[in-house]
């Protein structure tokens, strides 16, 4: 087990009379090399859990453990060399080039006054090539399409050379083609580079196609978790979203498929 969250709780507005509990007593274990999907309705605490696992936010109670050590003891840069994050959307305030954006992934590897050297450029180029965005290197980030942006942000996370990647709805607001590109990219990273990934998503079929493990969350708690084949069931989907579906195995696609969704009565 490389990354574990142990009995994590987190609440917003802690100083107010009634704090808002975002997640409550959540324990998750992310196996090394796994691609774990985080499913659940809006506001169930997926993003909060990812923020806690990445160390961006400290839990109200509980601990996040990376290779047997509490992540609060890592230090910011060393932790960033282990865990990289891909946010749902990235809006730089200024017009950085694609290469600039990816080189920023080298931040935890550089000293405060250091410029990127040839090695950093090599890593950045490799990351751009792995995400099929090297041809965009000189373009302004703001001029890219949503799918290209997301691939560049993933490249930037890869340039961080972390072995764990946390992605928050990486395909939200992307068109179908771009979604498939991201799915293929994640699968490549998973199979060929053995990157450990945790990915929050609302797209059940996307999750079924790439994830080997699923964690289901509802109202800040874990409803169930396990191998995708065991957890991706009509009963769980109904409990999560209040939606009746049929879960079939799609021979051609080679994975489970959720079809025929209708509001449960």
């Amino acid at each position, binding site marked *: 087990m490389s990354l574990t969250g142990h009995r994590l709780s987190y609440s917003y507005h802690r100083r107010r009379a009634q704090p808002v509990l975002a997640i409550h007593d959540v324990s998750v274990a992310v196996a090394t090399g796994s691609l774990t999907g985080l499913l659940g309705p809006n506001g169930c605490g997926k993003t909060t859990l990812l923020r806690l696992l990445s160390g961006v936010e400290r839990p109200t109670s509980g601990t996040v453990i990376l290779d047997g050590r509490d992540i609060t003891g890592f230090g910011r840069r060393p932790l960033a*060399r282990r865990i990289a994050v891909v946010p749902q959307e*990235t809006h730089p305030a200024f017009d*950085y080039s694609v290469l*600039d954006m990816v080189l920023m992934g080298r*931040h935890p590897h550089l000293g405060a006054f250091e410029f990127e050297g040839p090695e950093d450029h090599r890593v950045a180029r490799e990351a751009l090539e792995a995400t099929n965005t090297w*041809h965009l290197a000189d373009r302004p980030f703001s001029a890219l399409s949503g799918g290209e942006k997301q691939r560049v942000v993933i490249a930037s996370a890869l340039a961080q050379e972390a072995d764990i990647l946390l992605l928050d709805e990486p395909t939200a607001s992307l068109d179908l083609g771009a979604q498939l590109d991201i799915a293929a990219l994640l699968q490549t990273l998973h199979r060929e580079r053995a990157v450990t990934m945790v990915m929050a998503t609302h797209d059940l079929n996307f999750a079924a196609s790439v994830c080997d493990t699923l964690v289901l969350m509802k109202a800040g708690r874990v409803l169930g978790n396990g191998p995708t084949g065991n957890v991706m069931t009509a009963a769980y989907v109904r409990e999560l979203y209040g939606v009746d579906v049929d879960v079939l195995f799609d021979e051609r696609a080679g994975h489970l498929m959720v079809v025929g969704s209708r509001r449960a009565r």
Partner: protein
Amino acid sequence: MTTPQSAAVLQAAGAAPRPLRARFIATMLAFGALAAVVCLTAPLVGTTSINLGRAFDRSIPFQDNVDAQIFFVARLPRVVAGALVGAALAVAGVVFQALLRNPLATPFTLGVSAGASLGAMSVIIFGGFAAVGPLSPVPIASLLGAGAAAALVYVLATSPGRVMSTTVLLLAGVTLNAFLSALILFAQYLADFAEVYRASRWLMGDLDVGGFDPILAALPLLVGAFVGFATLPSSLNLLSVGTDLAASRGVDVARTQRWAFVSASLATSAAVAVAGPIGFVGIIVPHLVRLLVGADHRVLLPASALFGAAFLVVCDLAARTLMAPVEIPVGVVTALIGGPFFLWLLVRHA
């Protein structure tokens, strides 16, 4: 996965890895040369032509040497003040824009200059304390006002150990600006004509500091601010992309924000105490330099300092020569250039 086609595109686009260190050095040399040429030329130009040989001639007693007096008392301190104030406001602009993740932010957005103005005007209009050593009351009061305004905004926008809310920062700053402006108007209403005249002249900005003492008094603050700035550039890059992203890349976001806010407020306060609230330097220079050298703060920040110095010295040169013997307030010159430029930026961003 580079296809031959994309490789060709690459070559055409010249996407060979740019050695940033080389770019940094080239930029510093170019902008440094510009600032040096401007600062060395500016004291020689003016309504009265001076004989430089005579100005530096030590055999003539200083009180009889008009050239030396013009050069060393009237012009040189003014150029030095222009360079320091220009550099401070330009970098403060760069830092506030990154901190607020808003390209339209200026050093005055968060109410620092309004606080300074109220402080200065209170002393001009209501009188106050005597000079403290070489420091006259007006700059001290403006410094106190700026500090109080910055402290108030800071307290409102931060809670211990958490990242600042840029929304709260902006709203608090804008509200404070409006509130202080009302107090400034009220103070003017209570004053007599002579006081209002002095106060409004102060608000226009003036680099005629009349000697090196005010500059030396502000120097420790400026040095402190620039030491703070020096810790920021690479963190500001990531901060301007996103606070969560920055945190996940190993940036101490809360600390970076604190240093950015304190350093930029300090630089702004010191600059305003020396020369009054000279507007637009803190927005024009960062944007121009960003167009020239890109948005990487490791290059942008020092380049803006040098360009800001050159820019304000040139504006002040224009202020004192264009309509000679009448002097145009330097704040009017920067605003006349800055206003249209700012609108152009707005349209360009929209």
